[in-house]
């Protein structure tokens, strides 16, 4: 058994990428950046950015796990693990009591149950035509020229019942928003409508697994208070959100990297 193990996890999502460097059980450093054209390059950059903040070198890292939708682009990773497994593990690191984890990426939304060690016991992902729902937020934000973070507060100003969106494809999100605006519906209500629609789909999804406390929300969506508050309200559960919800996946990957490294050693020692 080696006393000091340094591992790293790299999470390449559809829009953002993160790296976490883990020393034994403490986060040495992390990085969070936008995904560039070349995902392989992005992966390297993410790791380097994280390394810069430390006094260790690339070679000190014993094992690297790549995760996320672009995990196969982390060419230098020793192994790839899905974001589902990683988010559960990462959530468990911050909140050992976590039994339900919700993660929403640009393409897919996932909900999972996990045990006291952060192992996934059940999970669900969105149905075909609900894909990309997360991205509708970005679409709308771009349309209105506001940042994702602004959506929450603006949408929460709205008290009245919001108009219901058709269940049509996210590709129509923009024009549906335009339709509403053209019918004289104020922006914050449109935003609220989109938050409602998104939460609606999240709830449908999360209802297909057991909703066991504690609930952790990770990924970019956790930064959208408009969505988080609504989920908490309709579930009647307080959600945990760590200081940087976007690194949860990368962190989980780093933790799994450590486990895998140890297992490999045990094997080789035999």
């Amino acid at each position, binding site marked *: 058994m080696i006393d000091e193990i340094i591992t790293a996890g790299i999470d390449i999502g559809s829009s953002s990428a993160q790296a976490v460097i883990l020393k034994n059980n403490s986060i040495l450093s992390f990085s969070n950046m936008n995904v560039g054209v070349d995902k392989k390059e992005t992966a390297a950059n993410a790791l380097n950015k994280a390394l810069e903040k430390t006094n260790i070198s690339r070679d000190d890292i014993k094992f690297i796990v790549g995760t996320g939708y672009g995990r196969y682009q982390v060419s230098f990773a020793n192994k790839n693990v899905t974001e589902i497994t990683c988010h559960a593990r990462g959530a468990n690191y911050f909140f050992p009591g976590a039994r339900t984890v919700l993660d929403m990426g640009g*393409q897919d939304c996932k909900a999972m149950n996990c045990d006291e060690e952060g192992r996934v016991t059940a999970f669900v992902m969105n149905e075909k035509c609900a894909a*990309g729902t997360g991205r509708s937020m970005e679409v709308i934000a771009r*349309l209105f020229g506001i940042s994702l973070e602004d959506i929450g507060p603006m949408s929460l100003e709205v008290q009245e019942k919001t108009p219901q969106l058709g269940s*049509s*494809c996210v*590709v*129509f999100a923009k*024009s549906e928003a*335009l339709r509403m605006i*053209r019918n004289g519906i104020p922006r914050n209500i449109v935003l609220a409508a989109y938050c409602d629609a998104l939460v609606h789909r999240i709830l449908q999804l999360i209802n297909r697994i057991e909703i066991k406390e504690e609930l952790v929300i990770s990924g970019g969506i956790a930064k959208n208070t408009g969505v988080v508050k609504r989920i908490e309200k309709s579930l009647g559960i307080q959600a945990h959100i760590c200081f940087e919800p976007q690194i949860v996946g990368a962190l989980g990957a780093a933790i799994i990297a450590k486990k895998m490294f140890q297992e490999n050693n045990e094997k080789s020692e035999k």
Partner: protein
Amino acid sequence: MLSAGIDVGAETTKAVVVDDRRVLAFSVVPSGWETPSSVRTAFNQALKEAGVEEKSITYIGTTGMGGKNTGLEAQYFTDSICNAKGALWSFPKARTVIDIGAEQSQAMTLDGEGRIVQYTRNDQCAAGAGAFLTEMASILELNIGDISRAALLSRNKTTINSTCTIFAESEVISLINEGSDKNDVARAVCDAVALKAAGLLQELKIEKEIIFIGGVAQNAVIADSLKSGIGQEIIVPQEPRLITAIGAARAALTK
């Protein structure tokens, strides 16, 4: 006598000024979220182009998804009617019209008077619509205009299996990662749209001449692939985006 037609689409707003014989001027502006203002901009631009006063316009026809509240003193017509009238006015022998816009794809056959004989349109799925093309272009880091140019350079045939925009996306990405040539993928994207359009046409008993209009018709590769798809000649107007607006102008006039 002068008339104007304004087509407020999902992506762009088009305005034309026509007299009894020809299109005097046109303009295309992005559809903002205040329809009246984007309509106003488009209209003014067209007027300026034509060098005519607004008051000399006798009739204004509007159409398209935002055509009902343009803030103008105008008559509204459904896009199908406008497509028919616009196509027939521009091409007197037109008997079939296929229109692929940002979101709507529709096909129709006409009689000599421009009355719609058969009509059909796409179902509630983005596949095959302009929006699909736009999404794919952005993944390929091409602007929508360049996608056909890229497709023309394609050497090897490849296909996109999923027509669901979102999943086609991940498919395109994996194709690229597996080292497929960008141009080939661009070609595959165009073919996918064309095949969808061909399917639409097959629903009707189509007759010559077949006019291909709407934003997507600007893509030469799609037009070409559609041609071979249905095994018939198709005509693409110089400015396929304008036909609907022209139809609106004509509809207003002939009322």
